């Protein structure tokens, strides 16, 4: 399972404040905590706090200085994505990188696929377009197939393509959870080997009471369908234990009595 730590995001108050004040300490603390918890990548997202390329550059530099963990560069505008990739090339010293994210709209998809090729990056493709987010399975799969086709034709191999079926809040759009699971199952059949299938997990528990329980239950169900990547709260120990157990059940890891320890050591 590829785990992307979600916490360095300007929509969290402490991170927003740290960006505004150019205070490295809280950001680097989250970089370390998430790395120790087993993050394979750290998502780095300015949020709404700034639109400045300088701030993005500073944020990426701050994370790269603290830990050797690769990052996923999270922004929805092309110019800042490019600035982020440039900064990462300078400060990240050739680590792997994921672009988070494109949609299926040509005006975004085509240039972001080009950027992914140019920077040797992975690319998360979110299955929405100018008509908005899909409300059913078919539309999700149609857009997923489009993203996969465009990216593949440009030369991205399946292991660099991450399809995101768009997880929606259980509390408000309960029927969508099942659609997302079915879309994941169908994404896994798009090619052999399949692309990665990535979810923004925490959307599922938005505004709900039992956040942690909903998160881990949904992630395990998604893994059973073929999801292999999640942007999530890697510091949630119960979530990580559930992932480790699901990997055993899917026969992706070999059982041992101390498998939780083994999983943590591996991470």
């Amino acid at each position, binding site marked *: 399972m590829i785990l992307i730590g979600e916490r360095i995001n300007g929509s969290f108050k402490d991170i927003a404040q740290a960006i505004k004040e150019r205070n490295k300490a809280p950001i680097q603390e989250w970089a370390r905590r998430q790395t120790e918890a087993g993050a394979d990548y750290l998502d780095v997202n300015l949020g709404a706090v700034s639109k400045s390329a300088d701030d993005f550059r500073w944020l990426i530099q701050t994370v790269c200085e603290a830990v050797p963990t690769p990052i996923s560069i999270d922004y929805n505008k092309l110019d800042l994505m490019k600035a982020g990739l440039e900064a990462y090339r300078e400060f990240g010293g050739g680590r792997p990188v994921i672009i988070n994210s494109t949609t299926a709209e040509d005006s975004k998809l085509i240039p972001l696929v080009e950027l992914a090729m140019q920077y040797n990056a992975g690319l998360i493709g979110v299955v929405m377009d100018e008509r908005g987010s899909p409300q059913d399975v078919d539309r999700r799969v149609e857009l997923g197939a489009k993203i996969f086709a465009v990216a593949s034709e440009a030369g991205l191999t399946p292991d660099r393509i991450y399809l995101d079926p768009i997880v929606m809040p259980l509390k408000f759009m309960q029927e969508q959870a099942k659609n997302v699971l079915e879309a994941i199952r169908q994404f896994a059949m798009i090619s052999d080997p399949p692309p990665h299938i990535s979810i923004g997990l925490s959307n599922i528990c938005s505004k709900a009471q039992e956040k942690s329980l909903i998160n881990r239950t949904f992630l395990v169900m998604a893994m059973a369908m073929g999801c292999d990547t999640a942007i999530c709260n890697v510091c949630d120990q119960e979530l990580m234990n559930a992932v480790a157990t699901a990997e055993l059940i899917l026969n992706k890891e070999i059982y*041992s009595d*101390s498998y939780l320890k083994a999983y943590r*050591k591996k991470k």
Partner: protein
Amino acid sequence: MPVTLPDVKKTWPNAINTVTLGATRDEGGTRTKKVTVGGATALPFHHFEGAMPYPPAIAMEVWDVAPQDWPDVLAEHFRDVWHDPGLWAKKCVEQYGADLICLRLAGCDPVKENRGPQEAAQAVKRVLESVGVPLIVWGTGNDDKDNEIFPAVAEAAAGENCLLGTITEDNYKTLVALCTAYKHKVITESPCDVNIAKQVNILATDMGFKPEDIVIYPTSAALGYGLEYVYSVMERARLAALRGDKMLSQPMICDIGIEVWGVKEAKASERELPEWGEQKERGPLWEATTAYVYLLAGADILVLRHPKAVASVRETITQLMGDGLR
């Protein structure tokens, strides 16, 4: 119409750990030769898919006491030297080309001569002063006895970077602590069970022992006596390792001589079983054939007894390594 075959070569994200045994004078030991195993980035001998930087190594078995039950076709090669483990080891290295010596402390076994820690340490010293190759020291398998003799053994070989074993799920703390203190590598044993193989490695590393200092002993069986079961365990461990399981990424050792020379196909003379052909051919052939199978399963160190088996396995390794042999 021409058909283009797809490229089905497999690449793996993880490599098997490399383990180097033996330490030279510069490194605090007295070895004149070191042996490195592991490092593979593909399945055994799949040179077209990845690297196999080090060929499997052959260790020859030496005892601290003269064996009583070795059949004549085996004993005849060692009877002149087996009163002294140093001379025995020397013969294995100089005459038969052993890469390593595996000293089995059979004399310490409570059901044999029940020798004590000082005698065990003495045997270790004799081998170390007689040969320049790295040393494996294999205990009795009796937990209490091993915990009694290994402190003296580990100390006698301090700095020589030996491979000591075995530890198990139920008995690992003493030997792991000793290997840490005296800078040796350790063999982790499991009863033909990949889950327990992983568990023992986790237990050892939980004590702060480095995963890179471990060699896995997945249990061995002779051809005809459960070999295919061991094969499947080794194969599963190796596949998991190449896929990224750090708790199974260790090189593997197979203890073959002791298994083969305990079964009738190798042990029975032609007087007992005339239809099976000459024992002096049959015995070493059984040992070598067993070894071939383990090579294909991923064995990195083979512990063998008969000189003819050693020669034949060496030839096979050379052939299988092909251009990959350094």
